[in-house]
């Protein structure tokens, strides 16, 4: 039985530098859990969903909460940057609206004050709002270990339910999102039971438009498969053509066929399948502002 007041016993490690942190990750491997904002890890500890001997808390490593943007490198989000920080960032709001909207709807104001964007990606929940948004925007996760850094494309990052492309000796240090062109646009939409809630279906899209014509597109859905997923069939339908109502309803039908949702306490597979298409259609409209 879980205990909502008393945490299980573990040793709390508080590295002062990233190199200390990766040393610890190397030493303890799967015996350790990494904690950034803690909004997921603490709950999992309480519920005995993870039983680490060590918790590596990144909080004391300085200067990890950066959010930077440049035309050349795009957006970089440090491991300790919170959802609140991202929501406050005007550049993100303007250039990466899908990610901004996902971060803005994450949890509740209290959760957003503590939760990190990187943490939301690493949790890799199928309903993780930033996972869905980032999958649509593209980009990579930067992982560090004692043997150096490597970048994993977001397209390869989510492997299966709760499984990600991160080795036990690695710590995620930042997210990189590609620079956006002027004609780029994106949006994120989700359906929940209540305002402060986990998504039961979410959708994100990023588009490069030329007038009403779609030059390039990435589309992702959340909570309809073991991980957030891209809907490549829908992307193919959209790419290089003019977006019309007819096309959107065809895309909606395709999306509904492509997703593989389940029944759970939050919704049903049938419902999720049905509204996936609706949400896909609406998120494209929202991105195109029509």
């Amino acid at each position: 039985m879980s205990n909502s007041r008393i945490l299980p016993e573990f040793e709390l490690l508080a590295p002062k530098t990233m190199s200390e942190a990766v040393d610890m990750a190397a030493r303890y491997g799967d015996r350790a859990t990494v904690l950034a904002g803690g909004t997921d890890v603490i709950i999992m500890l309480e519920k005995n969903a993870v039983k680490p001997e060590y918790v590596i808390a990144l909080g004391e490593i300085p200067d990890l909460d950066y959010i930077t943007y440049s035309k050349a490198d795009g957006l970089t989000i440090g491991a300790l940057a919170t959802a609140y920080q991202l929501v406050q960032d005007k550049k993100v709001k303007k250039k990466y609206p899908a990610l901004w909207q996902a971060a803005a709807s994450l949890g509740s104001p209290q959760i957003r004050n503590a939760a990190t964007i990187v943490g939301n990606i690493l949790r890799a929940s199928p309903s993780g709002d930033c996972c869905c948004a980032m999958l649509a925007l593209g980009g990579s996760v930067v992982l560090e270990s004692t043997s150096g850094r490597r970048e994993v494309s977001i397209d390869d990052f989510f492997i299966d339910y709760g499984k990600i492309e991160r080795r036990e000796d690695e710590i995620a240090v930042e997210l990189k999102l590609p620079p956006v062109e002027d004609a780029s646009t994106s949006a994120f939409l989700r359906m929940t039971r209540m305002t402060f809630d986990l998504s039961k279906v979410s959708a994100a899209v990023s588009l490069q438009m030329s007038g009403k014509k779609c030059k390039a597109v990435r589309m992702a859905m959340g909570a309809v498969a073991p991980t957030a997923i891209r809907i490549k069939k829908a992307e193919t339908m959209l790419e290089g053509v003019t977006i019309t109502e007819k096309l959107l309803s065809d895309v909606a039908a395709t999306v509904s066929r492509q997703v593989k949702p389940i029944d759970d306490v939050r919704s049903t597979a049938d419902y999720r399948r049905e509204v996936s298409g609706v949400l896909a259609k609406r998120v494209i409209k929202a991105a195109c502002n029509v």
Partner: protein
Amino acid sequence: MSEYSVIGQRIPKLDAREKVTGRCKYAGDMRMEGMLYGKLVRCWDYAHAEVVKIDFSEARKVPGVVKCLGPKDVTRKNYNTTIMKLLVPAVFSDVFGEIADLNIFNARVKHQGDVVCGIIAKTEKAAERAAEKVKIEYKPLPVIMTAEESKKKNAIQFTPLKPGNLAANFPDSFFPNNEYGWNAEDGKTVHQKFKDADLVVEDTFYVPRQKQVQMENHAYVALYDDRGRLNCWTSTQMPKLVQNLIGELFELPLTRVRLVQTPIGGGFGCRLGMIAEPHACAMAMAVPGIPVKIEYLREEDWVASESRASGHFYVKAGFKKDGTPVACYGDYQVLKGGYYTHGSGPPFCTAAFMHGMYKWQAMGCKADIWFNNMVPFGAYRGYGNPENTFGVEQLVDRACNKLGIDPIGWRKKWAKGIGDESWLKGVNFVSSGLDDCVKEAKKKIGWDKKKKQYANQKGVKRRGVGIGIMQHTSGAWPMLLEHSNVIMRLNEDCTVEIMASVSDLGTGAHTAVTQMAAEALGWPIDDVHLKCCDSDVNGFDIGAHASRTIYCVGRAVMQTAADLKKQLLERAAQNLQLKLEDVEFAEDKEIVCTWDSSKRINCRTIAEQSIYSFDDPATGKTIGIPGQMVAHYSDFVKHCSPPFAACCAEVEVDIETGEVKVLCLSNAHDIGKAIHPPSVEGQLEGGAHQGLGYILSEDIYYDDKGLCLNNDFTDYKMFGASDMPAENYVTLVESAPDDIGPFGAKSCGESALMGPIGSVANAIYDAIGIQITDAPVTPERVLAAIKKNGGVK
């Protein structure tokens, strides 16, 4: 100018400061010297199992463990959590089939979270750790979740006391044909009467298992002290009745049981009767002289304290072409959960509130209550009325729609009113503010304008407006005993200590009772103080349930104040050597002679002399009249003044996703007289919050093993502040003061929960032309219904 100076005033609640600062000490905040911690070891993995073996050997090794208690270490007496049997004549208790089927530690688990044994340790953490190390061997038993499974001939039996797993129904000896209702004037039964109807509408409604989710988890401290007294600190709603039950369970006279009511962090019926008081007391008795604290986790609270009843409610209603209500019949198949507890109580009230609402020519309702492996249902705000409202209000609108009749006009014409029989036979309405409630609710939502505006809608988002009305109760008489005691003791400075066991669940009851006492005495509110919450001090009171507190305790307060005032007049007359009829109260506690205002005495003088009584050294005569003044009234209210309410709702339905958004709610309540208006408004807003949850989002879900899938806030979804309608109007209708209620007041504790249920259901019907028969009305259900219907209207 109001005729009143204290009641009706918007003063801050007396407990506002301690609540806002967080300094209020709930049971969970209590710390005592040497206090130990108790942990109840529950069965989490099975909903139905026999306990084969309990092995404490590893648990005992945990540092800090003081005692491990199994079934043999505590009383094995069976009990029932409820107070029902105390409140009805013994013969009724037998007729209704009350049973005691629960133990402190149970050898057979009948629902997930059932208590098997317990740990006492020096710290909460040690108790937790040891509880995890108790090895319990179970023999799993077949899990029964539905009524159909429960009633099967070969189904496993829950208790030999209830053959066939029928926990309760409406006994034939009391309810002919197991139904509660009335025959038509022409002698026809409700079943026969449907033949006279031009239109019959019927449906089966699923009504959900809503959880109270009061903010304060259950917590207790108990101490079996050195004088052999069993003390229990608890936030129960019913301290005096729980004191009685604890005395009975542990075979102690009431002189040896002290119940102290700690501040209540929300009740909503959840703390009606006993929860873990027996466990806390049993643990305390195992370690005499040392206090033991038990504090539930939210997850425990969810699976192990009583919920609202759920099940399938079939309703059938017959009408004449002109709308005349001919017959209404209900059949409620209810899921009891693992234990008897409230038995037929809430389902009977479903029938009763059906009884109290409309002027059917004939009406009848039955209920069968089947044991199953869910958490037992008990009391939850509304007590049976939400089920009635969800079914009947929707069928009324369906019939009105088919007959082309205005649903508001129909309700105004056919709702019961003054002189008609209320929810209980023999109790007639003496006041009704329903027409004004309808008028106000309708006006504030802009009914006529919106109705026109939404007549021909196209597009994805469809709006609609709907109405629901209701009647409830003020106290439970004559179904149950109503008895309150108030003692007023006059202090030497002419202030009054009121001693009454008044439960304030956050309802403002302490404030309102204090206001009524001050008003009745005619003195400022600072001159009265309410001492409650300690069974050593307070006389008998039922406690808080059935929306009774202001209505019942208020009446007792008025009677006691009248007695104290009479005593003061008597002393004044004696002092002034006048006749009683020659003196009267004047300003500032003066009592004056009616025909010579120079003859006067102040109550302060009378009060002071009553206590500091001396003989005049010059004359040798006693100054004033000695003896502290105490007034007492023991009140048995023989009525229940049901209040009415009308609620209008405006919703927007997304027909592609099935999502329902409540845009506006307008609830007008027939309060009679609002004693503390901010508290009444708070009740109406809070009731709406839970009513909206009932109709739109709340239900406890179980997997096929009977294990709860949503015993936390992540997946049990209540409305949050940001989910409430942007426009939420509450109107206190005071145009129909009640002749029996104190100062004309009727209740408001439970009733606001019902209006949103009927009105939102009907607004959805108005928006899309489809009625949803299963609550909560989730987007999944709405979309499925739209598909089944082949689209919207």
